[in-house]
């Protein structure tokens, strides 16, 4: 018997959880275009942070910064993980690649960015494991299979090439690749945009399940407020490279404070 009739109240405790991810003062210009302006963000372990904003608000740029694909003009980026001292933007290319391959997973809206379309699906996942030093064929195959299965990819198709798969299946291969090494941080850039509604629901459901079962910390970028509402614990609203408002997801949707957020939420509801 778990909860009743022998009721047990756990001792209350105040939380002082240190963040997993801390970004401070990040700015990035591309020519005359200001993509990010003195932006700061924190992500706590096990939570899902949703980032919303219109096209060009800088949300995807921010996600790519988190994935160390770009270096800002200024700013500091830290992950509270062992053996990661200092500002991650100071890491050289090799160290960045290693860090991204082993500790950070990413799923792009466009599967061409995340997958080798002419390799097999299992090969795409195994490639990630190879980078991390796995060499035995049996182990590579076994672990790729495991990651594909966790992403609810049909295993009888694991040797199909992504180019032969539907959009929803391609996203599952990306997801399997992203989670194969059990990353500390999973970044999702419009992961369901362009999928039809029923497939979108299935992919979101898989993400939810992964989040629940593995407590993976996630950052999800989407212009679709429904997706953010389904997924996120906290929401950050971006506009013109800045954060205009952030808060608990229900607060952002039920009691938005900023004029821009109100406009955004009212446009949805």
């Amino acid at each position, binding site marked *: *018997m*778990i909860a*009743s009739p022998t009721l047990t109240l756990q001792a209350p*405790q105040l939380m002082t959880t240190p963040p997993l991810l801390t970004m401070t003062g990040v700015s990035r210009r591309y020519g005359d275009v200001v993509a990010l302006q003195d932006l700061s963000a924190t992500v706590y372990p096990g*939570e899902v942070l949703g980032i919303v904003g219109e096209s060009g608000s800088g949300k995807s740029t921010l996600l790519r910064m988190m994935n160390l694909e770009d270096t800002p003009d200024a700013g500091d980026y830290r992950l509270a993980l062992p053996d990661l001292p200092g500002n991650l933007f100071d890491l050289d290319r090799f160290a960045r690649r290693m860090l991204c391959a082993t500790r950070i997973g990413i799923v792009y809206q466009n599967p061409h960015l995340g997958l080798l379309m002419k390799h097999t699906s299992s090969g795409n996942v195994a490639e990630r494991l190879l980078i991390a030093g796995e060499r035995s064929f049996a182990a590579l195959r076994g672990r790729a299979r495991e990651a594909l299965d966790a992403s609810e990819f049909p295993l009888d198709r694991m040797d199909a090439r992504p180019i032969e798969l539907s959009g929803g299946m391609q996203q599952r291969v990306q997801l399997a690749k992203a989670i194969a090494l059990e990353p500390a941080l999973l970044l999702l850039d419009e992961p369901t945009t362009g999928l039809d509604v029923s497939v979108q629901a299935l992919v*979101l459901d898989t993400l939810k399940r992964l989040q629940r079962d593995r407590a993976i910390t996630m950052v999800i970028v989407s212009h679709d407020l429904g997706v953010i509402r389904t997924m996120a614990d906290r929401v950050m609203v971006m506009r013109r490279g800045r954060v205009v408002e952030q808060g608990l997801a*229900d607060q952002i949707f039920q009691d938005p404070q900023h004029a821009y957020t109100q*406009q955004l939420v009212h446009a949805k509801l």
Partner: protein
Amino acid sequence: MHPVLEVRNLAKQFQMHHLGQRLHAFDGISFTLQAGEFLLLRGPNGVGKSTLLRTLYRSYLPRAGQIWYHTEEGRIDLATAADVDIALLRRREIGFVTQFLIARPRVAAEDIVAEPLRRAGIAAPEALEEARRWLAEFGVKRDLWRAYPTTFSGGEQQKVNLARALILPQRLLLLDEPTASLDAGARAALIRRLADLKAAGVAMIGVFHHPGDVAGLIDREIELTAREVAEDVAV
């Protein structure tokens, strides 16, 4: 012994940018709530009872005042606490029960109910067994347990919602018309559960369309009056 909750001069208003107006909800709300106490919020429709509950839960941001939530390690002001702390408190200690279920596509009723237990680290088989016990307790038919509640009637959804919300005892429960749309059997199950929780020391604040339903549980009442609802104020 500290109270669970100490609310001081709590005020809420909504700033509606597109109207250029502020809508006053309430102000000057103060009360104290002890462990095991049941506080009923009374007042006519639109007086701000649900708004007060949502402000305590931080779905709404208060304009002024404090919401001191006491723990053995100290107290935390829910009005200004960090979002991450609120999120964790909601997961473990502060529950909110509405009449509306937020059903997710393709998640079975029993999985929805088991989720708080899974989050608390209880293994799937035990969590599911407990979830089924509560679905049965609230009168959800066995053949619906594996079904997706998105297609359920309002009453059946509400039962799933209650089972999920009450399956883990929390220290503070906010109840927003939980008996609405329930049949007599489910209402009785709910009241039994609330009485058990109260006896176990759970503090509760509730809004009920028919307060008679919970007459035996009520320790204190606060009447919200129209006085606390100011007119729209032009910005």
